[in-house]
């Protein structure tokens, strides 16, 4: 029997060895240190960017400002751009930023979409969900850009809409204040205006600003991100208002204002009835019926399939409508609008947008993919540099972007983090800041400044 036991034991041991030999752990990679790259030399302009995901607004500002000013010779910059994810306490952020950067600091900015903000240092993720669903999460993201320059003059202005008779007047006052803040006269037009209005009144804001600076002055900006929105004023934040900055410089400036959709799709109609930002009828038929036809019944199918209105809204981001503008030189420009059913149950057949489309305007149907949009965002610096005659392989001083939150929403979460990487490649790792906005404003040469959706604006300031 001893022999049998021995044989049995040998068999058992062999089995254990064979099984344990196969049961190896799964292979896992841990990121290593990045290859060091050299930065550009010191110029007359010092730019820094910083970010924080701290939920405490004061601590977040400190972290972000410390990061932005790290290694800088001048710790009191002239100008700061601050964007905080929706839901952040902007008043506290403003007072803390002034405390850290000095009371004379010129601050421009507002809220970014609740989901994220972005700088060259990375994609700062805040909430998981967007729109109304983000309110419960309490996660925050903050991005700061500080600029100290001998070659650029900044001026900031803001207005609380409730303090003026109209949005138009408030916007005029804001831009005049900004020009005066820059030490200029109102007849001295800025090279570029950075604009951040709150949602719903963007067209009036653009018109108000244009009344002061004219249609040919470049306005680039983005509507504050939501669901709860605010902009920075001089001493406090406004829930309904505008924050803007004017830039005067002799440095080369390149900019771009573009969408990323296929405009060769069939489907177009004349808007025959509107209600504010809602399209009620297209070609005298319920707007949703017409739009659904252009989509081959996709909205009804989506409603049956996903039921979640936010998801439907995100999916429709890839099927926007657009208006066409032609400049006197014959150049066509496309102004996109993000449509979604006004009624979550689809009983009411109106289509909502966050743009004011007028009766009689022709709208067209377009299509896009998230891949096109990612690549489009990655190429923003390149396109801006080309327009500004800035060498493509030359590192600019800094860049400012406004990226549609709806566009970001269509990009799979795993891919969103690649956005700053792609921008950095095209921007030669120059510092940049980019909020995710709920509407974008930009310039069409020969046409004027317009407000649209699902667009991106990008400004690059190069060295002399």
């Amino acid at each position: 029997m001893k022999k049998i036991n021995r044989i049995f034991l040998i068999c058992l041991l062999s089995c254990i060895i064979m099984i344990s030999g196969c049961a190896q752990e799964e292979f896992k990679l841990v990121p290593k240190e990045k290859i060091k790259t050299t930065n550009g030399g010191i110029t007359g302009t010092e730019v820094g960017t910083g970010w924080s995901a701290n939920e405490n607004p004061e601590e977040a500002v400190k972290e972000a400002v410390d990061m932005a000013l790290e290694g800088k010779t001048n710790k009191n910059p002239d100008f700061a751009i601050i964007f905080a994810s929706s839901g952040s306490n902007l008043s506290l952020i403003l007072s803390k930023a002034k405390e850290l950067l000095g009371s004379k600091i010129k601050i421009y900015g507002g809220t970014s979409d609740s989901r994220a903000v972005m700088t060259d240092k990375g994609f700062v993720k805040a909430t998981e969900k967007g729109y109304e669903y983000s309110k419960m999460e309490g996660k925050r993201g903050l991005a700061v850009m500080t600029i100290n320059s001998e070659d650029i003059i900044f001026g900031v202005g803001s207005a609380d809409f409730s303090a003026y008779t109209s949005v138009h007047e408030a916007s005029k006052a804001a831009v005049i204040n900004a020009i005066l803040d820059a030490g200029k006269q109102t007849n001295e037009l800025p090279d570029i205006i950075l604009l951040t209005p709150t949602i719903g009144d963007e067209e009036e804001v653009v018109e108000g600003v244009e009344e002061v600076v004219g249609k040919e002055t470049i306005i680039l900006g983005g509507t504050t991100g939501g669901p709860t929105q605010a902009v920075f004023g001089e001493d406090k934040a406004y829930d309904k208002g505008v924050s803007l900055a004017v830039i005067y410089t002799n440095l080369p400036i390149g900019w771009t204002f573009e969408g990323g959709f296929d405009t060769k799709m069939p489907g177009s109609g004349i808007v025959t009835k509107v209600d504010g930002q809602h399209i009620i009828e297209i070609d005298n038929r319920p707007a949703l019926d017409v739009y659904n036809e252009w989509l081959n019944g996709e909205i009804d199918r989506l409603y049956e399939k996903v039921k979640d209105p936010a998801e439907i809204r995100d999916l429709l981001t890839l099927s926007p409508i657009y208006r066409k503008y032609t400049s006197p030189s014959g150049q066509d420009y496309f102004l996109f609008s993000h449509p979604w059913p006004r009624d979550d149950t689809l009983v009411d057949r109106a289509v909502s947008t966050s743009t004011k489309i007028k009766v009689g305007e022709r709208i067209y149907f377009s299509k896009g993919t998230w891949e096109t949009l990612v690549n489009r965002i990655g190429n923003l610096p390149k396109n801006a540099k080309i327009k500004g005659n800035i060498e493509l392989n030359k590192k600019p001083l800094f860049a400012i972007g406004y990226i549609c939150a709806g566009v970001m929403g269509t990009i799979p979460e795993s891919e969103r983090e690649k956005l700053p990487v792609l921008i950095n490649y095209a921007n030669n790792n120059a510092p940049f800041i980019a909020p995710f906005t709920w509407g974008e404003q930009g310039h069409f040469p020969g046409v004027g400044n317009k407000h649209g959706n699902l667009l991106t604006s990008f400004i690059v300031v190069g060295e002399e």
Partner: protein
Amino acid sequence: MKLFYKLFFTLFIIFLAITIVAGCIIGSYELKDEEQCLIDKYGIMAGLTAKEIESKYTESKWPFEALSTISENEDFLFWWVLKGDGIYLADKVSFIGTASSDYFPKVDNKLGDKVYLNYKQNYGIFIKSVNTGQETLYLWLGFSLKEIQTLKMEIIISVIAFSLLSILILGVSFYFVISHFTKPIQMLSECAVSIKKGNLNKKCEIKADDELSVLADSFDEMRLGIKDRNDLLNSLLKTFQGKFGNLATILVRKNVQELVDKNQRIKSILPKSLRKSIKKSKE
């Protein structure tokens, strides 16, 4: 039962060895097939994606959708696009800007299209060169060999399970087969013991049609022969009863040797042949 165990273990070990060898051969073929399937799968993906990169690169675009689809594979580990040694683009941003040699010092991408397998750490890398026209990039697709290891485990478990099952089945079947041979031998042995004790009436019978039944028949004939002689002796004793008194009965029925040992005088009345045999046995 010793014979049974000897036979059983000999047969079992032979059977087990055959099972393991056959399992290993079949298993290794299956593993090779699976490995080739995995390599082919990633090879096709790498080829198609490389083509897409080549076509889009000139427009400063990347085929993110195709790359994202690769990431959905169960055995997918990573995708990297390398410029020289540096990771230019990756599925996970944290790897971008790091050096591939920091992770895989032994893998050299300069050799172009190839596959690198590491069974120790359970991964494989398919390397595909991407010719953009301006520069050569390298697409690395990392995949887990977990599936192959799982298959290996499945084969081992199957072999073990099959062996255990064969112990059971072989045990039962061998019991019946070997019993067929050992039972008659045991019965013959019992018969012999019985004859030794003087019981010559127990029949030694095996109901079969083989050599063992022939042996049993011969054995039984031997028993019958002894029985006949014994009966004859008994009848002789009966005949001589009273003429030689009880001496003959005593001599026949008791052990002669024992009687001689107790009383040497008995020897003198024994027949010559018996005396000789006693003497011989003593020697």
